[in-house]
């Protein structure tokens, strides 16, 4: 172990990568035909038991891939129990759902379709409905080459679409690539973001989404056990009020904020976060600057959405 530490100190200087990494400008690992089929399915209400809800109902492309409502509304006007996270850039998330209960998008997509609160469906019914649709049969046959549509194929197509939902070329990414400069306020905001320790958790390609953290690390945050937190997965006392650190990309578009949707604006969210999780009360100009910085994280609308 001593050796390892020694090694570390020697290589420390060279091994520092930037704490935030820009999104790739172009993603090359997408099967476009499949993704387009997934796009159609993403907005398909047939996938919900009463044909009222689709994936898009709670992951709206008009709201940064998330839901402007505090909690989403599923079939039969049923209300969800947590704020809907964005579907954008979710391929880079280390785990899915607020409490990280699954590891992959494939597992994630399987969740809401079966959730009685959300879409309330089962695989057989989905297969039956889609197989009754001549157009879908044709489209699936073109992609998968099989005459009968299977549930796995439905999930596979949706996942392929979701993998294409990447928002490149945000102002900040371009700054990171040395293409442009941030203005004074944005730059100050970025510095504060680093100095005040936001970056300790919000780092990596998705500016978050690579660790868990307790809501209220310094100053305890209201806990009533009604939200599905990490504790509901691990059943460990220390995981109460612990959630996956969310992405800050496109944060401007995805209000309201936090798992409980308790902050409607960015400045309120920053104030809440710094108090509870950083143990500091930021000054007004700092908050203003950080908001300016956060607004540079809004990327381009995913290309797949407008692809013909």
């Amino acid at each position: 172990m001593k050796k390892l530490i020694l090694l570390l100190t020697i290589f420390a200087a060279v091994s520092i990568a930037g704490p935030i990494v820009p999104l790739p400008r172009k993603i090359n690992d997408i099967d476009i035909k499949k993704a387009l089929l997934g796009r159609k399915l993403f907005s398909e209400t047939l996938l919900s038991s009463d044909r009222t809800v689709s994936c898009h109902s709670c992951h709206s492309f008009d709201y940064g891939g998330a839901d402007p409502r505090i909690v989403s509304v599923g079939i039969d006007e049923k209300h969800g129990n947590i704020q809907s996270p964005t579907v954008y850039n979710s391929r880079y998330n280390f785990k899915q759902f607020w409490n990280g209960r699954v590891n992959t998008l494939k597992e994630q997509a399987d969740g809401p379709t079966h959730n009685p609160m959300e879409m309330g469906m089962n695989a057989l019914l989905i297969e039956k409905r889609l197989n009754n649709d001549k157009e879908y049969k044709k489209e699936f046959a073109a992609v998968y080459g099989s005459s009968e549509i299977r549930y796995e194929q439905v999930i596979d197509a949706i996942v392929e679409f979701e993998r294409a939902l990447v928002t490149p070329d945000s102002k900040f990414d371009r700054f990171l690539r040395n293409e442009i400069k941030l203005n004074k306020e944005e730059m100050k905001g970025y510095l504060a973001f680093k100095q005040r320790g936001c970056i300790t958790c919000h780092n990596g390609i998705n500016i978050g989404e690579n660790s868990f953290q307790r809501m209220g690390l310094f100053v305890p945050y209201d806990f009533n056990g009604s939200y599905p937190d990490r504790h509901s997965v691990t059943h460990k006392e220390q995981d109460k009020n612990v959630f996956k650190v969310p992405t800050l990309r496109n944060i401007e578009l995805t209000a309201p904020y936090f798992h409980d949707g308790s902050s409607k604006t960015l400045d309120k969210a920053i104030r809440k976060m710094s108090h509870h999780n950083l143990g500091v009360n930021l000054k007004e100009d700092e908050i203003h600057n950080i908001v300016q910085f956060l607004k540079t994280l809004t990327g381009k609308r995913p290309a797949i959405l407008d692809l013909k």
Partner: protein
Amino acid sequence: MNSKLKIAIAVTLGTASLLLGIYFYLLQKDFSRDYKEVSGQFHTLESSFGQINYEILQSALFAYHNQDTISSRLTKLRETYKMLTESSMLRQKQYARVMKAVEDAADDIDNYENGINRYMMINAGIKNSFVFLASLMRKDASSLSLDKELQDEIYTIIDQFSTARRMLDADYLDDTEKLLEKLDNSHLAKNQREFIDTFILHAKFIIKNFPNYINSINSLLQAQTELNIRQIRELFIKTSQNDFQILDRLAYILLGVFIIAMVMIISLLIRSGIENIRLLRLQKELQYSLTHDQLTGLLNRVSYDTIIQQTNVPTLLLLNINNFKHINDFYGNETGDIILQEISSLIKLPLIEPYNPKFFRMGGDDFGILLNKTDLVHAERSARAIATTIESYPFIVDNIEIFITVSISVNNVDPFMENADMALKHLKTDYNDNVIVFTTDMRLKEKVQLNIATMQRIKSAIEENRIVPYYQPIFNLQTEEVEKYEALVRIEQRDDKVLKPSDFMDVAVQTPYYKEISNSMLEQTIARFRSFNYRFSINLNMRDILNSSFNKDFFKILDQNIETARRLDIELLENEELFNLDLVIDFIHRVNRYGCRVAVDDFGSGYSNFSYVSSLPIDILKIDGSLIRHIVNDKRKLNTVKTIIAFAQNLKLEIVAEYIEDRETAELLKSLGVTHAQGYYFGRPSKTIV
């Protein structure tokens, strides 16, 4: 073990080693692929821990750290672990223990992952707090004009924190809490109070979480999980050694089988090579023994038959040793054999080239010399040279010189062998010479001699009453009973051989003995049937009935046996010679008056003449045997027989078929309307009547 079995075993072994080879190849390919895959996965898993630990230490040290690396390495670790649990190789029975250990490690992996998640949570707070404590002092504290004592106190606390952090040792924070309390109790201005509160919040956070933080780092770095995985990997490698050993053993077996198969095949090849050589030699020997005489080494009779056909203008010299039987009897077969061998050399001595001579031993003491394209004068000269050579050669037997004489015939007329043989016989009986040239008149002489012999046989048979009638039954096909008998002439020789008419009648008819034979047959037959109450028949030639002397004797006998003659039938044999039809008709009428019936015999053979038969007042028609014998299979003969039957039925003649040898023919004939039948199927001619 026979060679077929050996070949079968070699082929089986060869095939087996081939199949085994393919099997082995696939097996080891599969195995080494699986082995590489699984051990690679173990390796990835193990190295993941090191990489993650490295990242963890980095995240502990650096204020800004991209945690994506940790999460992606964790994902990789989890995926690798999942692949291991799904590995088809580990699912095999012999890896059950490894699999169990892998499955048991699931909790370890989960704990490890949770440990990292927990570490990252604490690390974020601790790191932020340290940053705060440092930067607070630098940025804020300076503007707050804290008094010296308070400042010193704060520096002491910060120093304790930084030492604790540097040493990763919570012990340095033992009295920090007291210092904080003191700080908290100080009297402060409002803006100072706010600063001190934040300071205390972070300091307390560190004090509270630092021991956990260190524990969490230590437990991650000491990584029991990593150790467990290494142990599982070692268990896997140990277990797989068994498979490697099995593969090793299989390889040896394979090599063994292969070598055995090769050895067998090679030995079979060698053996078959030897066998082939032996067979070839045997074949040569066989060929030689087929074409050569074993004793003398000359060509044999079989060769002669082949060679004579390939010779354009052949002249054959046939040599026979005079009284060789005597030599053999007197000196013994061994001496005889030696003499034959010596003669086989002697006949080659006289120079009879350029006639391309070929020397044969024809069998026994007969030698042949075949010359090509020579004339009789030269050939005879050669024959004499050979005779002289042999006859002047002293054969030494038991120190005694003996001399041998030979007879040689010379012939250039086909059939070469037969003619030469005939000439040799002439030489032996008629001549006083040792060489003879065949001439065609020798053959005539031969025939005459044969005729004379036959005549002498007939003569002595008559003198010694050896002309004997044999009787053959004639069946009525309707009643299926014997109705009458035909008397057939036979000569019983002294040596118990029985001569048939074909053996002597041709000669007999040329002689006065013929009449005597006929009379004798008639007398004996009538005598026999006098007391035997069946009809019977005798054979007469057309020529007989035209002979007045015969007629006289014939009717005289009939007159003397009026009663018996009533049951007599006369079978007239057709004849190519012209005859007086009226005289025949007269004869028939005359015998009819005695109660005799007349049959035409052998109808359908050579001279059959429907017109004369229809003009004779006969009662019976006998169909010739040559037609009957093949009637079942020969459609033309069947049609001829049908015609004859129709003809006879029209004339209301009784029909007798001869030479019936089986049931099928008998039934066919019966169905065609034949009323009477004779032949071996019904009964052979016999001296006695049963």
